[in-house]
């Protein structure tokens, strides 16, 4: 998530990347085998790079790498059935196919959602929702939470620093680390609760509850291209889903 969402993705209406990533998720779940799953993953990565947010695809590799390793291990190496020898390792043919399918499914999903996150602009999202007249409360909750995360993280780190200077040990035995939970979480939780009161007063005074028609401050353009992409992607995903369920 950034104030500068990228040269191409940033020009879309906020709902377009949202619909696209949901469609990728549906297609990933519906992909029947290793070839289709791999095709989907490759297409997603290429699209992401073309959209100017290639770093999202790379970032997705971080959580994916251990998942892929274990899929390979669990299903490929330890899998039953027909064995095939690759590079000296005896791997299950079926297991390998299942591993590749699942790996590509997870890859497509992870890449799509990280791209959405990288291209998300809070203000444009709130304006898009307001423009449509949809629930302000929901949009508020999503955006306020996303914007609160760095603040809470910074506070948690500051608390850890403060507690360490008072003698808190974070390394060492698991018991040590479990003992550290209280001194780290308590101040964070208490601080959060103390804030809730005043913030509630401020939100009430600024008429944030019972919002009927919030004015979009800078409504994002919903071009024909945006609508076309959303409809095509949505129809495609539904078609594939129906084909998988009934075909």
């Amino acid at each position, binding site marked *: 998530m950034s104030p500068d969402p990228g040269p191409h993705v940033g020009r879309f209406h906020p709902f377009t990347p949202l619909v696209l990533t949901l469609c990728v998720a549906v297609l990933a779940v519906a992909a029947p085998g290793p070839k289709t799953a791999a095709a989907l993953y490759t297409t997603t990565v290429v699209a992401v790079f073309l959209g100017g947010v290639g770093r999202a695809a790379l970032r997705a590799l971080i959580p994916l790498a251990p998942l892929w390793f274990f899929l390979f291990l669990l299903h490929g190496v330890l899998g039953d059935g027909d064995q095939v020898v690759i590079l000296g390792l005896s791997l299950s043919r079926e297991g390998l196919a299942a591993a590749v399918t699942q790996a590509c499914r997870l890859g497509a999903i992870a890449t799509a959602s990280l791209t959405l996150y990288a291209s998300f602009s809070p203000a444009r999202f709130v304006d898009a929702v307001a423009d449509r007249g949809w629930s302000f409360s929901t949009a508020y909750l999503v955006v306020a939470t996303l914007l609160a995360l760095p603040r809470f993280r910074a506070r948690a780190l500051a608390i850890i620093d403060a507690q360490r200077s008072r003698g808190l040990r974070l390394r060492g035995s698991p018991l040590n680390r479990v003992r550290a939970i209280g001194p780290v979480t308590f101040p964070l939780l208490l601080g959060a609760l103390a*804030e809730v009161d005043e*913030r509630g007063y401020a939100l009430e005074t*600024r008429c*944030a509850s019972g919002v009927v028609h919030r*004015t979009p*401050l800078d409504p994002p353009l919903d071009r024909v291209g945006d609508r076309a992409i959303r409809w095509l992607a949505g129809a495609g995903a539904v078609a594939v889903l129906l084909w998988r369920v009934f075909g």
Partner: protein
Amino acid sequence: MSALLFKGAGFTYPGAPSPALRDCVLHADAGSITWLTGALGAGTSTALLLAAGLAPRHTGGERTGTVLTLGVDPALPSSGAALGGRVALVLPSPATQLSGIAETVFQEVAFAPANLGWPRARITARVSDALTALAISHLANREPGTLSGGEMQRAVIASMLVLEPDLWLLDEPTSALDTAGRALVHALLRREAVRGAAVVVASEDTDGLHQVADRLVVFADGCPVLDGPPQEVLRGERVWEAGAASTAIAGLARAAGNAAPRPLTVDEGVARWAR
């Protein structure tokens, strides 16, 4: 016509052993600045929360007596519609009053008007005016989280000013501001009173407010004990007995053994002592 009226009002926080506010009689008129002060825990902050209707609605606890804000009981659920956007509340810590969804100071100040569904043109015009009035126009595109304490406090006040409220309730609104900033805000409150708003400000900034406020109400132990023109009240001894403080010069005079009525400003002090 009183913008704010307390008649025998009392309030006890949930689980508290004694009331925070007892038998309180208070009124604030449109077009004037009413200044509340008192020792810590004397009840000024609670009075403001009561006026805004946030006590007991948000705080829990029990209220007794009558509270009328702009003619309605603010604690009633139906009053939300009547009072929305007409009552400004500014609390001591600026950071917790931020909307939480604004990426720029402009969006922050536009938060309330946008929620009320104002037309975009009106929002843009009013927000620009408010930013100018608080001398933070140059910060319009900054992220609210990166502001200094003083800048944030100005942004919070601007986000209330934009509404042109009928009643201002301010609790220590200048704690993070420097001398210039405090002077700016006090001048702003004066202009608001001239515009016809009722301004109620709870503050320990005696030196700053004694020439700006029209009336001073001193609280002690949950109840107003003094009520009168600031210049009169601050020169006397009773304000000290109530646990509050007067201006620095008056404090100096008192410490030096001068009896009431005491000088309030440097000029008055010089006139009194340089003989």
